[in-house]
């Protein structure tokens, strides 16, 4: 009996010590951060990112340099690729206590700016002498998602345009010349077919070709690269510049959807089930697919064992060159307590990480010489392709209800085309009114 009482008492005591220790340690930390603010006049700035294991270390070394050089701020990194969107939206909606600075995707930037969660940095930018604050140096398409009603709410720090990675060994074996910048859709599809080989060494279209026993495919796609890229290449649009309608039923757009569907159903492209089983980019890396469209930043050519080249994506039937460029940006929490110091950290960090990844979204930085200095592991030819691709890269037209629009576009149109071999011509008239409806709701606001 006594033993039990003593166990209980000791448990309670340990508990109370631990809990009080817990709260006193938090008090200590609060005071210590206050002390640093007073003595060194440095503001602690919390930065949230989705950097991975290696990236968070690289980022930390960039931050360490900035912190050492700054009299105004100390940036504290809080990186985690896990559930980034849930984390950021919850923390922002709760006001202070969230991060001061954070990475933001182009899609989220538009949405968060409209909701008032991002700090308007237009005036700060015009007053700053930092290279990254020179708004006119940014590619227009790269800055667009961070603008809302003519105000700027964040800056992009990297753009990732889609390029064409090819397995040169397979081209050599088939005696096909590498892409020369003049390829259009027809040429691309015919090369893809020539690079497709069945177990008997026959190509699609030849007598005796066994489409159920293909050993090597010419190309692969599974919703990526986005169909929008092909629509733009054919002078079409999926959302008009005034955000009033989705002209997916124009002959230009329709032709692009049909081409996409033709690729999906072509023997030159693995079935969606095969792609799911064996991995999308993995099939290219494992030399089962000859051509792959990927982001320039993915640097696949440095990761594979075969001879891999980086080329521009093919142009549309009329020769129009467009590629899709994904954007990574950074923004400031509208509720931050020290906007001046946070802006200084923001602009210094933006400037620093623009030199970190391929490709900086700045016109002055996108040339082979400048990129070569930053990314010596990529060949001159590769960087040349990247520079050319940046000149015609476009992004999605994001707006506040974009997730609703995208939901319909993907589930009602693209998913059936990709996974059920649906005919785009029969789907487009059904889906267009729904897409237009989302845009109507948005523009009536």
């Amino acid at each position: 009996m006594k033993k039990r009482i003593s166990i209980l008492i000791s448990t309670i005591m340990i508990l109370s010590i631990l809990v009080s220790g817990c709260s006193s340690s938090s008090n200590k930390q609060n005071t210590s951060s206050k002390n640093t603010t007073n003595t060194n006049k440095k503001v602690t700035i919390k930065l949230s990112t989705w950097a991975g294991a290696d990236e968070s270390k690289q980022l930390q070394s960039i931050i360490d340099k900035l912190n050492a050089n700054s009299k105004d701020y100390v940036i504290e990194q809080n990186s985690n690729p896990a559930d980034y969107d849930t984390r950021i939206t919850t923390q922002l909606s709760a006001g202070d206590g969230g991060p001061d600075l954070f990475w933001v995707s182009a899609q989220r930037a538009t949405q968060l700016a409209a909701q008032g969660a991002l700090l308007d940095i237009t005036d700060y930018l015009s007053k700053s002498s930092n290279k990254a604050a020179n708004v006119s140096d940014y590619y227009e398409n790269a800055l667009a998602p961070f603008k809302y009603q003519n105000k700027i709410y964040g800056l992009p720090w990297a753009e990732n345009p889609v390029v064409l990675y090819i397995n040169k060994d397979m081209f050599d074996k088939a005696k096909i010349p590498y892409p020369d910048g003049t390829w259009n859709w027809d040429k691309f599809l015919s090369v893809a077919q020539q690079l497709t080989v069945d177990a008997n060494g026959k190509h699609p279209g030849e007598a005796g070709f066994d489409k159920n026993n293909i050993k090597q495919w010419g190309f692969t796609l599974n919703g990526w690269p986005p169909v929008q890229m092909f629509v733009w290449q054919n002078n079409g649009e999926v959302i008009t510049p005034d955000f009033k309608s989705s002209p997916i039923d124009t002959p230009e757009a329709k032709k692009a959807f049909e081409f996409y569907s033709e690729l999906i159903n072509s023997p030159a492209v693995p079935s969606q089930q095969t792609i799911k089983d064996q991995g999308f980019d993995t099939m290219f890396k494992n030399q089962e697919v000859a051509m792959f469209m990927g982001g320039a930043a993915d640097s696949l050519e440095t990761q594979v064992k075969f001879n891999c080249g980086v080329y521009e994506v093919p142009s549309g039937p009329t020769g129009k060159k467009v590629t899709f460029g994904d954007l990574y940006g950074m923004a400031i929490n509208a509720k931050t307590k020290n906007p001046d110091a946070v802006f200084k950290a923001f602009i210094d960090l933006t400037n620093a990480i623009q030199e970190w990844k391929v490709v900086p979204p700045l016109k002055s930085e996108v040339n082979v010489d400048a990129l070569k200095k930053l990314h010596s592991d990529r060949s001159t030819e590769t960087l040349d392709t990247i520079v050319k691709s940046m000149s015609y890269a476009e992004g999605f037209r994001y707006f506040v209800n974009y997730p609703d629009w995208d939901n319909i576009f993907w589930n009602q149109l693209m998913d059936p085309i990709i996974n059920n071999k649906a005919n785009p011509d029969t789907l487009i008239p059904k889906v267009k009114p729904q897409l237009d409806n989302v845009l109507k709701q948005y523009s009536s606001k």
Partner: protein
Amino acid sequence: MVDILHGYRQSNRIRNVTKKIILYVILSAIAIVILMPFFWMLSTALKSNADIFAWPPDFFPKPALWGNFVKAWHAMPFNIYLINSIFIVVLGMVAEITSETLVAYGFARFKFPGRDLIFFILLSTMMLPFHVTLIPTYLIWQKLGLVGQFDPLVIRAWTAWGPFYIFLLRQFLMGIPVELDEAAEIDGATPLQTFVHVILPQIKPALLAICIFAFRGYWNDFLGPVLYLNDMNKYTMTLGMYFFMGGVNEQPSWNYLMAMSIVIALPMLILFFIAQRYFIEGITFTGLKE
């Protein structure tokens, strides 16, 4: 006669053996199916990142890269993450079990106005999806100035926040004869003394089951830490593991991810095997035998 009996016994034995063989074959097949994901996880953890997607898959990688476990552990400061995890698990478990046992005791033994209504409300909170309470709870902790500390993850457990465990304990307590309490009362015990000396020893199996549940909950908790901990030095094991999911254009390190998944699953497995008997008993045992 003896021969007939002997033959009968023998055929009976053969029948029994055949029955067992069939049973074990079926059981083994099911066990293999269930263990397959774990085996795949282990096999992936021992491969180089380049070999993971090799087709057809190679289940016995040669050479087996046991060093992946060490490399993964050192790729991020997992020593700190482990200490943080243990800190939260121990404090959270103690808090949760203490508070919930007391609350369950109250519901099971005391009559007070509105008791059933309160219990009903308590149970109905189980129906609320966590999304509903996510932001309000965050706001409360933020107003208290405790976001970024371990406090939201630990102190919340003092509020007896697990309605399911309270329900489980209450049902268990209802099965214990009130006569025991009354006997203690006659001997002059206060309700707290009765609780400690009479009730607690009786509900050990249930407490142990809840211990394991709670351990699993805190050890595997991901959403709590990801929301409330915004300092990388306070990260837990589950958060640390996610660094291997890739980043901006960092490729996911599946082998490290699987290696750390095994490390994280290990304490759970060990605990379950040790406490298996009590664990099952705690769930199925609903009352004292009359």
